[in-house]
């Protein structure tokens, strides 16, 4: 930012001849650029290609963009940008370091799997003779109206979900890499806005979908406003929005602007600003008491989108949270840790307890994601390198478990679409043992049973927290894990040991897309459970923020 700023100052000095062009490291920013480029291409496709061909092209484009971006991430990481060559890009507003690359990789993989789920067109019954995916034929049409019927009949599809998703992914890639508060805010909005729209585009139960969108949007922008106001206050405190510089001001290395330095309000600005920034991020990660949108939105959104949100949003938001607290506020540890303790404990306990009485599988997973946010927060609180690595690993493992779980949810269907009420899952294990077994595996991973990725992640996080002196948190975490286990097991019991209801849901046979998504989920879940060393190393190598 200050680069831009200095640009202005010099312009003011009428020294136009020597305006230096901002230095942009295109190669190192390529992951984001590829995704945004693909998104723009996607819009062009929407504009110029006939409807019938859009689906195929969009899917291919999205996958290509995401995989290309992932390759870029891998290349950058292999070049050592995650470790030795990490640094700041785009005049210091974007960081290129281990956590950024790691999380970008995770986000991209999660996005690939999500796009596979988007592309699934075989699950739903053929409506009007046309293959249909999870998204409404025409978002603008009134639910149940004539227009919608016609659009469906005509075989319309909301192929705009692909570019929307790509934009969201782009924002998410930027979010954990953002090195100043403005970039962070912009990235937040860039990935939030497409998500609001995506939520509204469910094919079935559109009322719920729209309600989810409106709730998400209103609450999300409410939270953004807090984030922005926090940014303003911090700017007021430090005179800069760049995270390392804020840290310098806090630690007294660089004195703050004299205008405010003597003010008694000084620390209040800092602390209130910090709290408000935290609110914005806590909202995104779904921490209590900023979680209330989660169950409603998860339930209402189209399931592939829910999966995408649950995985990628959480990764991006935790990335930003980590960067904020590790880069900008390490000096304020003693101020924010108690608050974080409270939030983490509340999140774990409330998430677990509320899940106990849920009757809808998507809401159940939503509450489970809240509880998991609490577990991850314990790793954030550790404020040591171990904690950082542990959180990175946890995010990796969690996103694939949750994606896989939501992918399975899309398979269980009755005449009205997905059968998400738990009662209709009764006896699933007797009808489709394979699907039930896979879902059980994901549930066990959520519950943190050894030999699944969930256990390794939980162990890593708790271990880091304990090493960081947060033993009580570990104990609360363990106890709420026990409560959480109760409802995961309840679902398993329901699937395997209850008699199927007559006329209950059937398990649709997925196409290769969802099949791949689930398979990847299973593979990662088991792989990270049994042989996690490589990824632990990766996470541990990546666990150093550039300043």
């Amino acid at each position, binding site marked *: 930012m200050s680069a831009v700023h200095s640009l202005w100052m010099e312009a003011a000095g009428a020294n136009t001849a020597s305006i230096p062009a901002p230095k942009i490291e295109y190669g190192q920013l390529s992951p984001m650029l590829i995704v945004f480029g693909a998104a723009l291409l996607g819009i062009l496709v929407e504009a110029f290609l006939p409807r019938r061909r859009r689906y195929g092209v969009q899917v291919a484009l999205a996958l290509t963009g995401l995989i290309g971006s992932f390759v870029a991430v891998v290349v950058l990481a292999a070049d050592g940008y995650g470790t030795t060559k990490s640094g700041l890009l785009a005049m210091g507003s974007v960081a290129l370091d281990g956590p950024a690359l790691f999380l970008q990789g995770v986000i991209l993989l999660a996005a690939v799997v999500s796009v596979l789920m988007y592309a699934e067109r075989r699950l739903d019954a053929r409506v009007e003779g046309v293959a249909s995916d999870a998204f409404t034929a025409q978002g603008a049409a009134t639910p149940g109206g004539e227009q919608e019927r016609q659009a469906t009949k005509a075989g319309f599809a909301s192929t705009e979900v692909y570019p929307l998703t790509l934009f969201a992914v782009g924002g998410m890639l930027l979010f954990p890499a953002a090195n100043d508060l403005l970039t962070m805010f912009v990235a937040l909005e860039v990935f939030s806005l497409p998500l609001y729209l995506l939520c509204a585009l469910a094919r079935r139960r559109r009322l719920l979908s729209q309600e989810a969108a409106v709730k998400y949007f209103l609450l999300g922008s409410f939270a953004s406003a807090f984030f922005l106001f926090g940014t303003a206050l911090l700017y007021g405190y430090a005179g800069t929005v760049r995270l390392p510089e804020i840290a310098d001001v806090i630690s007294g290395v660089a004195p703050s602007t004299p205008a405010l330095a003597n003010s008694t309000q000084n620390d209040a600005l800092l602390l209130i600003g910090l709290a408000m920034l935290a609110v914005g991020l806590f909202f995104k990660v779904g921490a209590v008491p900023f979680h209330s949108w989660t169950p409603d939105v998860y339930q209402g959104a189209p399931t592939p989108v829910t999966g995408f949100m649950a995985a990628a949003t959480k990764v991006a938001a935790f990335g930003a949270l980590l960067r904020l607290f590790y880069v900008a506020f390490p000096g304020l540890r003693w101020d924010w840790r108690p608050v974080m303790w409270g939030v983490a404990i509340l999140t774990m306990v409330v998430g677990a307890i509320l899940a106990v009485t849920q009757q809808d599988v998507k809401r159940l997973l939503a509450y489970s994601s809240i509880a998991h946010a609490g577990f991850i927060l314990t790793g954030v609180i550790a404020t040591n390198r171990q904690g950082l690595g542990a959180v990175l690993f946890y995010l990796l493992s969690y996103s694939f478990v949750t994606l896989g779980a939501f992918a399975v949810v899309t398979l269980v269907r009755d005449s009205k679409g997905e059968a998400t009420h738990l009662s209709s899952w009764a006896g699933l294990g007797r009808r489709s043992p394979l699907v039930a077994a896979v879902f059980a595996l994901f549930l066990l991973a959520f519950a943190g049973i050894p030999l699944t990725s969930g256990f390794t992640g939980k162990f890593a996080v708790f271990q880091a927290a304990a090493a960081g002196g947060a033993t009580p948190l570990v104990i609360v975490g363990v106890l709420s894990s026990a409560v959480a286990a*109760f409802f995961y097991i309840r679902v398993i019991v329901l699937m395997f040991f209850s008699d199927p209801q007559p006329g209950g849901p059937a398990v649709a046979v997925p196409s290769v897309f969802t099949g791949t998504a689930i398979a990847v989920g299973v593979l990662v879940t088991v792989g990270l459970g049994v042989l996690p060393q490589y990824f632990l190393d990766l996470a541990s190598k990546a666990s150093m923020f550039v300043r």
Partner: protein
Amino acid sequence: MSYLLTATCAVPAAGAVLTAALPAGSTEARRRTTKLTALTVSAVTLALAALAAARFKPGGARYQLTESYSWIRSFGISFSLGVDGIGAVLVLLTAVLVPIVMLASWHDADPAPAPDGTSDSATFEGRRRTQGFFALILAVEAMVIVSFLATDVFLFYVFFEAMLIPMYFLIGGFGDRAGGPEAARQRSYAAVKFLLYNLLGGLVMLAAVIGLYVIAQQQGQATFDLQSLTSAIADGKLVIDPTAERALFLGFFFAFAVKAPLWPLHTWLPNAMGESTAGTAVLITAVVDKVGTFAMLRFCLGLFPDASKFFAPAILVLSVIGIIYGALLAVGQKDIKRLIAYASISHFGFIIMGIFAMTSQGQSGATLYMVNHGISTAAWLLVAGFLISRRGSRLIADYGGVQKVAPVLAGTFLIGGLATLSLPGLAPFVSEFLVLVGTFSRYPVIGVIATFGIVLAALYALVLYQRTMTGPVRDGVRGMADLKVRELAVVTPLVALTIFLGVYPKPLTDLVNPAVNDTLSQVHRTDPAPAHPVAGPAGGEQK
């Protein structure tokens, strides 16, 4: 480095996968293939276990045949296996019991006739039922063996926890078809209860495992290797302050006490054993629960010697309560399998008491007790299972006069009962007496109270026999067939072992004693010296 131990765990694990992958089908031939495959795998496992036990040299190092492979370097975790005398006998117990359990459960996983008279073999589940059952048993076997062999705390923990899952499906998925229409609900309740209790225990232990690692890490011992940890503790390289040590001890102990189970954490056991098939119940009480008591001996005492000593009196009180309480509840039961379950709770009280009496008699006795209880309870329970499968009822009141129509069944049932009440000459007596004498020499009052448990044991065992087997022949019992060849093949080795180990337990004590002495030296305890030792060579031809 030999691969023997890895093979001993890997064979059943691979067997589980293989069995599960066998072609599904409802035909008798397909099922038989499945069963024979599983049985063969378990027999091979037994051979490997026997080989390992034979290679073990009682006079040598504490852990032998060790293997170690790096697993999760980041946390100092390795896949380390090693066998000591205690582990060896328990692995043998497991390897012996599993094929017997399979043979006993031969038809337990056949497709059940649906209520409307049709067989459920039409459904997918019905077709895979047999594969599932036998694969789960093998999976449990593999995990239990790893737990007994693990010399890495984390490795142990992982399998200690993971074995809950196949057990859970065994309990919840396969019942003894004797519970009436409520059975399915009861069974899933039992399975959930089993899992939740044990999971809670496991999670608490997880906290302690983490705590241990963190403390070790802070002192430069970032490892989960049991031997490194214990030697570091012994050498004072690893110093855990008393409060932390006690907390960690409680974390470990809680998990083991749930699993074992120790009063008052026992209430899951009667449900789990009552609702599952007899074979599964044997797996629970004779094999899986032993991991809990085994772990107390190896991990609680080895890692937290001072805390173990600190809590020993309290634990002894709980265990003696368990002995009396379990026996009294067994007396009050109406259900055969629940009765046996409460009897087991009483026996686990003895085992835990023996461990925490911290005498060589107590601990050797406790280890023997684990083996003997496994064998004798298996015999008792499996015969009870045969009985129940004939009549279709678990209620004691539904039986009477069985000895008249099925004398061999009644006779073996009596032997099982006599073993349970620790009749001298049968294996459990030796171990029970050692536990009692070991406890008595340090805690006389507790020893005396526990001794009265043997009266109650006689009461429940004989009352059960009297009510079911003697008296006039009841209507539902008339025409009951005696034991078949397969069933005899199940019972005979168990009875033979019960008698053999009662008369000649020396092969086991020779294996166990050095490991127990080592454990005792870890906790810095020596046996209380007799008040007036007999001068000269005491008794017989001992060294």
